[in-house]
């Protein structure tokens, strides 16, 4: 049940994140929305992991490890995106 609830939350987060990315014009808010979308994808995958519980584990450890990797990679991408936005704004500021 827990898996299903948070899987559905993940689906909703994907929709909310995509909406924010498309509708908001502020670049930082788009990056933030992208993170919401990513969190939703991870939650859906987490629901899959929960359904795969077995062999004494509360969830399938392989998807869990991949989600963990994904969170770190998403953070790295976010920092790069923020740096790009700041550089762009600074360039416009000087012009």
């Amino acid at each position, binding site marked *: 049940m*827990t898996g299903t609830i*948070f899987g559905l939350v993940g689906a909703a987060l994907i929709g909310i994140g995509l909406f*924010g990315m498309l509708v908001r014009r502020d670049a*930082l808010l788009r990056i933030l929305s992208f993170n919401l979308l990513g969190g939703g994808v991870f939650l859906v995958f987490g629901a899959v992991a929960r359904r795969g519980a077995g062999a004494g584990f509360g969830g399938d450890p392989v998807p869990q*490890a991949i989600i963990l990797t994904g969170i770190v990679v998403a953070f790295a991408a976010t920092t*790069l995106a923020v740096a790009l936005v700041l550089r762009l704004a*600074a360039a416009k500021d000087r012009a």
Partner: protein
Amino acid sequence: MIPALAADGLLAAGILALALGCVATRRAFASAALFIAYGLLLALAWARLDAPDVALTEASIGAGLSGVLLLGGVRRLEGLAEPSPDAETGPLLTILIGIGCAALTVAIGAAVLLLPDPTPSLAPQVAANLATTDLGNPVTAVLMSFRALDTLLESAVVLLAVVCVWALTPEGGWGGVAGLRQPVVRDGPLALLARVLPPLGIVIAIHILWVGADAPGGKFQAAAVLAAMWLMPWMAGLAPAPRIDARWLRLVLAAGPALFILIGLGGALAEGAFLAYPPGWAKPLILAIEIVLTASIAVALALLVMGPPEPPR
């Protein structure tokens, strides 16, 4: 049963309300603050999903570091001339996009509901092979042994991100101190916390790294806490950021991935497969990689939040 269900429902409602708030709020600072609260609740949700390793990562990286990164971005954008804002999305287009996103949510939600229960799982294979690694934490075993190549590439991605962020250094700033110079705060609450919290945080990070072999925890979570403990005095101006051309800095950044590759090559020579650990050596080698990689990732994460150097004005 009922309390568990109630806790899940409450967390779900809270997460969705905060996510909607993030997207709908007018001001960027408020959005970033909501995002931090959202990350907090998401970490609790991961704990409910029996994924404590993911919960620790979400709490430290998803909520803590990402939130502070976004806050810093908001703050720095304010200091710059307002870039002529694009026109807001029109109402008709907003409604159309809303309908499209809602349809996507329904489709993915249906897919979640239609998932086979139980789904195909690798848990039995992990359980069967856990003994060969001498580790007690299955997620660490997956990260460091069964899917070690993924983790190696991930540490390379983090390093690559640092290189890319540095590549955005404006003209005349190359080789300078990472990020904006922070005003020095000698006393007051910020200075107090910046002095007292890091020693505690470092102990906690070492604990998280150490238990990671057998219990939830590990290098990424420990590295994120360490990075936060460096960023704290940095924000108070008490611990200046390093120059990005400092040799020690580049050595620390490269040490983790380099050791990982070396041990992987050693496995190729000794066992005939890249990243294969000789029998009986799995745990010491994994611990060695974890410890060095923690230092590299901690420095990389902190530098990513600090950003590229600024040219002197």
